């Protein structure tokens, strides 16, 4: 328990600046405090530091404009993609037969569905990375709190599924089309596709790329104004596309629970816009490196 408290104190103190981290951990080692006291001391300092930081508008902007909306939107879109691809995953993985490959028509379908799902996953990955990048570059010293809240928003979005059920409660008390009693009920009645598969997708396509983006965002150096403008325009366009994607999803859900669902229009892919964020970063990074080889953004 003592070792665990010390270990926890070290982890908590990582949110301090490197100099303060060194001074505080040195003081604790010198004073010979118990693990529990050390943990309480470090927690006290971290809380005081965070309170001081949250008196500024920047962390609040990052929290209100990024953490909450991004957490909910990414959770929504990830759930939408998990629901959509679960049917094909079930069809091709649980019911695999070589006919899918040997039959020309089935093979074309396999390639088409596979490519469609892969592109959607790529778009989600880009959105997550861009969201994380924005969060990292705007939060800086409050990043530990904002990232924890972001994960909480994702987890709550996934576990409670409020938007999914809200439309149902508001509009019509009958099961959703994609629910366990709907057209694809066979797929969603399996615990793996209704619970595990969305969680796995969220972990691989949202959580990990977001963390990667946060890391890159924290390392972002000051850029010249023109390049900064291009980078932020790309990032904002990507996040706006994410908002569009989830609002379409919301409308589809709303139509889905109406007594007579409206026909679903063919929607253009948002992948090119989703790619803008990472592409803008890559361009800014390479052009910056070409100009100043010693600096890394």
């Amino acid at each position, binding site marked *: 328990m003592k070792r665990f408290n010390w270990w926890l104190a070290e982890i908590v103190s990582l949110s301090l600046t490197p100099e303060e981290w060194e001074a505080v951990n*040195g*003081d604790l080692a*010198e004073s010979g405090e118990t693990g529990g006291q050390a943990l309480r*001391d470090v927690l006290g300092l971290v*809380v005081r*530091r965070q309170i001081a930081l949250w008196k500024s508008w920047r962390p609040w902007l990052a929290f209100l404009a990024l953490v909450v909306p991004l957490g909910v939107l990414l959770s929504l879109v990830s759930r939408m993609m998990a629901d959509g691809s679960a049917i094909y995953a079930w069809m091709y993985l649980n019911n695999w037969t070589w006919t899918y490959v040997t039959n020309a028509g089935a093979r074309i379908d396999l390639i088409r569905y596979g490519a469609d799902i892969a592109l959607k996953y790529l778009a989600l990955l880009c959105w997550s990375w861009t969201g994380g990048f924005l969060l990292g570059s705007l939060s800086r010293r409050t990043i530990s709190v904002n990232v924890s809240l972001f994960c909480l928003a994702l987890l709550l979005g996934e576990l409670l599924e409020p938007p999914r059920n809200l439309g149902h409660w508001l509009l019509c008390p009958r099961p959703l089309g994609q629910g366990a009693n709907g057209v694809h009920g066979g797929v969603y009645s399996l615990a793996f596709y209704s619970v595990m598969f969305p969680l796995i997708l969220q972990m691989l396509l949202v959580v990990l790329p977001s963390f990667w983006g946060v890391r890159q965002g924290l390392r972002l150096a000051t850029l010249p104004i023109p390049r900064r403008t291009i980078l932020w325009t790309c990032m904002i366009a990507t996040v706006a596309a994410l908002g569009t994607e989830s609002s379409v999803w919301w409308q589809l859900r709303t139509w889905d629970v109406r007594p007579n669902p409206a026909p679903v229009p063919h929607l253009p892919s948002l992948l090119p816009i989703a790619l803008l964020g990472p592409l803008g970063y890559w361009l800014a990074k390479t052009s910056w490196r070409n100009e100043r080889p010693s600096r890394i953004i």
Partner: protein
Amino acid sequence: MLGEFEYLLLTAAVRLGKDAYGAAIRQEIEAITGRRCSIGALYTTLDRLEKKGFLKTWMGDATPQRGGRAKRMVQVNAKGVQAATSFYNAIARMSRGVSWEAKRTAVEP
């Protein structure tokens, strides 16, 4: 005007002189007042006093007993000494004639 803890911290740093750093100041305050001094209170107050221009801090040497980690050294400057002096004088003037002040002078030679 300083706060009570700010005064204690400045006084401890002056008493310690060249050996004033985080853990030593904390130990000094705890030993003299008999009250626990948390690291959070110590470092946030140090920052506040440094911002007010009463002291300066810098990273010092690392020692083996600190696990090879550097100390945050503290030095009170003239402005800090002036602030502490005026705080002490104000307290001393304010305390003249009150019962606990009379008791203190009776006990101490």
